[in-house]
């Protein structure tokens, strides 16, 4: 009878050695068909060697274990390995996807081995449709855990250097010719992105457009007052200058 083959992917060498030695203790017939230390390598090698089982670490450089599993065209049984991923473990439990927690204990691994033997003895099942939907969700979650998708950093060039300005530090943006001036507590930067583009990308709860050419960080506004000529002026904290609110945006400051 053909011996079952397994593949191990983990970016940390010690952990590959550890799993290999544990597996050889608990499942001597299992042949380790290959190892990889990053996601891309794992995907290529699994596709070419077609092992029966793949142990995939979730957190790997290149591609995560989840992404590798999703892209596999081969019918190989996947066991995920993770040090700590609350949300992934919950999903695995719900979908009956096998996983191992680091450090891997003998009892837990023995359970997995028993389950794998049983699965290999039965005819290969195809539950991949369900699996890929779960993976899709997990991958999205892994890539940006709590990301609302707004712009967080401004790349501003100063000579040869590119500085990264956190948008939280920006007091206001103002259009100046073909550039946009970014005013922070430290000074001014010029960027190419237009005020209109910025308005689309910034968090609208934090940044208000008050004029065709101005976007202000609401947390930097000290107060709003009416000028002698009837227009609205914004006074900024820690700054002597005032910003003009154009008529079309005056509604933002109507009393609640």
């Amino acid at each position, binding site marked *: 009878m053909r011996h079952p083959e397994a593949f191990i992917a983990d970016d940390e060498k010690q952990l590959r050695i550890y799993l290999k030695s544990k597996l050889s203790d608990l499942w001597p017939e299992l042949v380790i068909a290959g190892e990889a230390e990053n996601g891309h390598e794992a995907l290529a090698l699994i596709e070419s060697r077609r092992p029966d089982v793949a142990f995939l670490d979730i957190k790997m450089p290149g591609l995560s274990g989840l992404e590798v599993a999703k892209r596999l065209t081969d019918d190989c049984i996947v066991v995920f390995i993770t*040090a700590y991923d609350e949300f992934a473990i919950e999903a695995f439990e719900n979908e009956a996807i096998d996983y191992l927690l680091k450090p891997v204990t003998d009892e837990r691994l023995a359970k997995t081995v028993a389950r794998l033997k049983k699965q290999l003895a039965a005819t290969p099942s195809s539950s991949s449709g369900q699996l890929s939907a779960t993976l899709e969700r997990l991958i999205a979650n892994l890539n940006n855990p709590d990301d609302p998708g707004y712009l967080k950093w401004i790349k501003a060039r100063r000579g040869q250097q590119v500085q990264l300005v956190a948008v939280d530090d920006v007091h206001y943006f103002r259009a100046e010719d073909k550039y946009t001036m970014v005013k922070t507590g430290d000074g001014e930067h010029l960027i190419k992105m237009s005020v209109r583009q910025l308005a689309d990308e910034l968090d609208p709860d934090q940044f208000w457009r008050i004029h065709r050419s101005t976007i202000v960080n609401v947390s930097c506004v000290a107060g709003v*007052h009416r000028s002698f000529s009837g227009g609205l002026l914004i006074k900024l904290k820690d700054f002597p200058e005032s910003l003009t609110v154009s008529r079309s945006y005056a509604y933002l400051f109507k009393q609640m």
Partner: protein
Amino acid sequence: MAAYKYPMKPVKGGLTAGSAVKLLFYTLVFDTIIALFLTAIKFGGGFWINFFFSQSIGLSCCTCVMAALHFFPGDKPLLQAMRVALALVIGSLGGSFLGATASGIGAAALFDKHGLLQLLTLGVMFGSIITYFFSSREQIAASREQLQEEKIKRLTSEKKAAEANLKQLQAQIEPHFLFNTLSNVLNLLDTDVDKGKSMLVDFTRYLRTSLVRTRGRRTTLGQELDMIRAYLNIYKVRMEDRLKFSLELPDHLKDVAFPPMLLQPLVENAIKHGLEPKVEGGEILVTVEEENGRLRLAVADTGMGIRVDYHSGLGLANVRERLESLYGSRARFILEENLPCGVKATLEVPHASS
């Protein structure tokens, strides 16, 4: 807030409608008082004549001053003072002329009786008093507001500091880091006991310093760098050739006190977002320098760099908040692209003991 603040503070953003009405009201009241005063010292005509003249001169001055402030909102206090003085001269002359004409006394008769200089002196003197009274009221209101603002600011920064501390505490020992390290140690006990032991020693050192710093005790740069070395040693075992690092701390800065939880997060960040996700790994360089009474601490990596499309906050908000609450505006935090790849984070803080 009203903006009529001559002469101590320059006017900002023009005169508001509310303050103009207030100014007008005070002018009316003061003019009445002046009329009473002049009648009492038997200057000019009877009370009603004096009242009439006071009001016309006062209102004229008031209008001129308001016009000067509104149409020439300057920033230089001296220039502002000169404008107001000129406005008072024009205002008192114009007011006297109008008053004299309207009351039927006639401008010529008025100037004959009191002389140009006397009228001017009176106008400018009372005008200055009113202006001064009004501006000091503004001043008091402004300083009260400033006091309130400062109080709010202080409370906010205290709250932020507490929140940042809490967040740090929660994120203190990252579970991934903890369990991966333990896994490594477990294997090394089978394959390379000495390496396993030294990893445990580094891990213990890291944990101990972590626990000390959560109690908020002041640490030194030497201790901080020791902890960072322990942390990077652990990662060196895990990442092997994928990680190179070097720490540069001049001997004379080792005992300088430095708050915890500022430099360490930058290093953790460089590993987590820069080097760990990068297939070929890279290098971390930590440097501490002193220059012109300022400490400059930099963490440079050759990792993935900032991915703008990723829109990540990078977990550096804590560092910025903490820096702000510890040093206010005296500290700087610069994040820039490291050439040819990666990120360089620089902290600049005042160096007290130089």
